[in-house]
């Protein structure tokens, strides 16, 4: 019985010591102990408001390169369309036939 009481007391003391150590480790430090130099706050430079992005695509940029097989096919289709337009003009010559817009994907 004495041994049991002795073990119980020792356990209680151990728990108390552990609790104190835990409290010391997790307790917030006082402001006096953590005096740090004041860092001047830097505000970002004022940027003028823009409605459009700075990255406006130039209309003069070259179109993205298509594979040469696709390009050759586009050229061939263009020739066929233009030849059909020319044949229509020869069959029935008018200004409108000559100036009609092409639907060729090569130019549009």
């Amino acid at each position, binding site marked *: 019985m004495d041994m049991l009481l002795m073990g119980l007391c020792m356990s209680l003391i151990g728990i108390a010591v552990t609790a104190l150590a835990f409290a010391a480790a997790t307790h917030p430090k006082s402001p006096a102990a953590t005096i740090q130099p004041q860092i001047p706050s830097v505000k970002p430079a004022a940027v003028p408001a823009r409605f459009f992005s700075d990255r406006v695509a130039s*209309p*003069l940029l070259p179109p993205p390169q298509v594979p*040469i097989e696709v*390009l*050759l096919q586009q*050229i*061939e289709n263009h*020739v*066929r369309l*233009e*030849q059909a*337009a*020319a*044949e229509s*003009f*020869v069959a029935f010559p008018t200004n409108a036939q*000559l*100036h009609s817009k*092409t639907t060729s994907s090569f*130019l549009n």
Partner: protein
Amino acid sequence: MEHELLKGLSPTEIEQVLALGNRMTVSSGASLFRLGDPADSLYLTVRGRIRLTLPMMVRGREEDILVEERSPGQTVGWSALVPPYRFTLSATAPLETEVIALPREALRVFCETSPAVGYKIGMNLAVVVGNRLQQVQAMWLREMQHIVELKSIYVEAAR
């Protein structure tokens, strides 16, 4: 089938002209003639198709670009009848194609002995060449117009 070069000829005359020629089969993808080759024969297309192409530089590479396609009944290679007798286009068959090759010399002798037939063939040839010229003129003008329109767009965009 009616050949555009033999329009207006009687069946007997057509037979006589066709007898001057040799039937040839051009296999798919094969060349009938190349630009700059001596043009000794005129061809009448019987079956299949003939692609007439010119070399064009595309991205620094020479590519054969379609100029015209001839189908059965149409004539190919009239350079054989017009000095300096050199082909100004290349001709290939995109599929197995049958043509009748009319040698220039045989045709010339026949037309000299039958001037009435020679006249009709000459007139038909003028129609073939004239049509080609008018079509090319129209295509040239339309292409020039496209260039002018594109140039206007670029000038506006550059402002």
